[in-house]
């Protein structure tokens, strides 16, 4: 599991799984369609990614389908990290 995948997965478990909810979150667990993250909460997840991964995800690309799995989210992050290389 790469660093971004772990970062996203841990954040989802910490922030979006309700206490006592022991569902396993894998890279392919449906987050939006599975009711773990709703479309309103997606905004805070997007904000988290933008801050922690230093990436700007255009609103048009931040769709529920694109955010539906950890795998999809990580792909989105990689796509826009490539498009906007991090400057030091």
């Amino acid at each position: 599991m790469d660093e971004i995948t772990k970062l996203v997965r841990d954040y989802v478990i910490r922030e979006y799984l309700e206490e006592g909810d022991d569902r396993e979150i894998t890279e392919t667990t449906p987050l939006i369609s599975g009711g773990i993250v709703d479309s309103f909460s997606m905004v805070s997840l997007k904000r988290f990614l933008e801050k922690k991964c230093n990436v700007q995800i255009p609103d048009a690309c931040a769709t529920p389908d694109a955010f539906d799995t950890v795998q999809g989210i990580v792909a989105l992050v990689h796509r826009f990290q490539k498009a906007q290389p991090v400057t030091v």
Partner: protein
Amino acid sequence: MSNLTCCEEIAAKSYEELTADFDWSIAERELGYKPGDPINIGWMCSDRICHLGMADKVALYWEDYQGNRQQFTFDDLRVLSNTVAQFVCDLGIKPGERVCLFMDRVPELYIGFLGILKTGAVAQPLFSAFGDESLLVRLQNANTSAIITQKKHVHKVRKIREQLPNLRHIIVVDAGDSALQQREVPFHMERAQRVEDFAVYPTVAESPSVLHYTSGTTGQPKGAQHVHYSIVSQYLTAKWVLDLQPDDIYWCNADPGWVTGTSYGIIGPWANGTTQVVLDSGFNAERWYEFIEKHRITVWYSAPTAIRLLMKEGTEVVRRHDHSSLRHLASVGEPLNAEAVLWSQEAFGKPFHDTFWQTETGCIVITNFPGMPVKPGSMGKPFPGITAAVLNTKTYEPITEPGIAGLIALHPGWPSQIRGYWNNEAGYKAKFKNGWYLCGDRASIDADGYYWFMGRDDDVINTGGHLVGPFEIESALLEHPAVYESAAVAKPDPVNMEVVKAFVTLKRGYQVTDDLELEIMNHIRKRLSPLAMPQEIEFVDSLPKTRSGKIVRRVLRCKEFNEPVGDLSTIMDD
């Protein structure tokens, strides 16, 4: 049976023909109700349909995101709602007591709703994404006696139960082998002893039925008190506006935690003997289109936010599926913009019909009827039996000139009008002016009698079709250790119409950081709900206030909407 097969005839009538000589007794007769007789929504939606010869007809096709499926006939509804009712009675719940339903869209929610009503108790559905604070204020206000919930949500109840001494029973529908705690009791609907015969409590027209909470500008949310007679409006509007016909497969996207999910996700369709489908899943365009195709859905009642999310996913995904079964599309929750109407025409070959109503009205009151020419962007016309107007904001007299904005108002007296706010008579009285009920929205009426929505008339935020009160958000913001003062206002949003934006001043010693913004957002999401979470937080040095120190949200809201702020003479210079 004949009264359930006349929809085509109704759809063929003009608006003028439908409104001429309209009387709600049409619905009473079709429901077999005589004024003064007992009337019980739970019985009307299950036992009555069985008596009409539809016991074996499927009432509910249910599916979740994992592909688990269940189906229930109207006879199943009858027996299983009896089973729930018996269980609730055996716990000692008495007629009139409030029983909260706090579940995802699982079958127990829909059937439990009917079961509670059969006992004469009041059903209090609450959105399962509510955080513990939102849950607490609503259960405290209603003095709720029991709550039916799922294992995944019970921890929220556990957090607050010590503050709810009158909450005697916490019923867990999927407890399995989990260890339960004090006041908790397991109930497995389908493994319980099936109750064939239950003596339905003889509620009458004015008996309380459902308590839905709605937000206002000031104070905590208010409990909108509905009565069993509301079924008269819900039945007829479902039939005439949603055009429900005997062979329809109907899908209402709304969660029964909100009024659309009970009026048109339970009562309206089942009072009509209509088969409905429920997808207990979050949004996913592909999945939704597959669901429509698989179940051959004919009538779809959705919301502008969902439609705009579908628009965002494009038309290619629409074309991958067969939607030829769809006959009628309708929408509720917030104004349906013209672009969405035109898009649905392109995507599905038919427009979404906008419908306007709210928790307090209990049923659709202004609408685009099937067959009526749709003016994209318009709310439509008043439902027959509803006397509506737009009122002058100062005189509260109806405006007769076309195109002039005023307050949307309804003449009281339709069957599903709420009978009050729970323990809040003053709040209810304040909704009436000059003999009219004020909806809290502004609109104009054109020369053809079509209503055009213009916006809210107060500080309430309409996000994704749900009303969120700024007071509740501001109160929760102040619970965060870094927040000194706050104001929550609406901000325009292309998908949700409006979203919450918070303006915050920090306490001494706290610095604005990226982490702090995210922390505050998540604090509100967990305490209240995802809907209430500010989508943006602006940290400011001070907030605009009157000379008496009251925060003036209007100034902040106008800034967000690029509207003129108006008179600032009462604002304190800072």
